[in-house]
């Protein structure tokens, strides 16, 4: 599942970016708040899940992103 998340992140921010769980989507990957929402939409579409918006507020790091996605994979 983390592979799919990484694919989405690389497809969005670029394969040349060094993306790991500690990466900050704004500070390290150069995204903005809209990019983070866009990434969530892409991940939901790719994994066929639905994450309540409230749970995605203020998520900035890849680790926090993985955590919230993992909570919903299989539970949907």
């Amino acid at each position, binding site marked *: 599942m983390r592979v799919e998340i990484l694919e989405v992140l690389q497809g969005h921010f*670029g394969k040349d970016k060094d993306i790991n769980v500690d990466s900050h989507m704004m500070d390290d990957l150069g995204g903005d708040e809209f990019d983070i929402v866009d990434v969530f939409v892409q991940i939901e579409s790719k994994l066929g899940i639905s994450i309540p918006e409230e749970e995605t507020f203020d998520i*900035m790091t890849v680790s926090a992103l993985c955590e919230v996605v993992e909570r919903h994979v299989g539970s949907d």
Partner: protein
Amino acid sequence: MLGQIKLVLFFLFLSSIGGVIWYVQHLQAENEILTLNNEKLNGAVEQQQALIQQQLRDIESKTAINEQITKNNAKLTADLNLANEKFNKVNASGERRDVGNLALSKPKSIERIERKRERQRARCFEIAQGSALTEEELNATKKSQINAECTNIANPNYTPY
């Protein structure tokens, strides 16, 4: 007989004098009319010249307004393109982000971001009007810490990377 001739000549002389007087008076009356007409025409010419000058000034004014509108349009188009690039930028896969579609999928998230941006815009106006920068603004060096609406004046220590 001679007396009669003199009388006739005298009447002819009187008639001639009368004719000349009438002719001169007629000429004077005509001259007065022509003088008045000439004055009226001069007045009309002055009015027309003033009107032409006014029209020339109006044309200059309209040309200046048109130039200003053209400049404003160019600036608005540039701003629109900039905003379009900012909101609907292309990601690494070459797909254009559509904030409108994102707002349909995630309305609360987009509203939240917009509210944050609104607060940042208001802060930009405060700074532009002379408000001192806060420690947080001065110390912002990361993208997540900056005021995205006016980084150049709100976060002098931030270097885009």
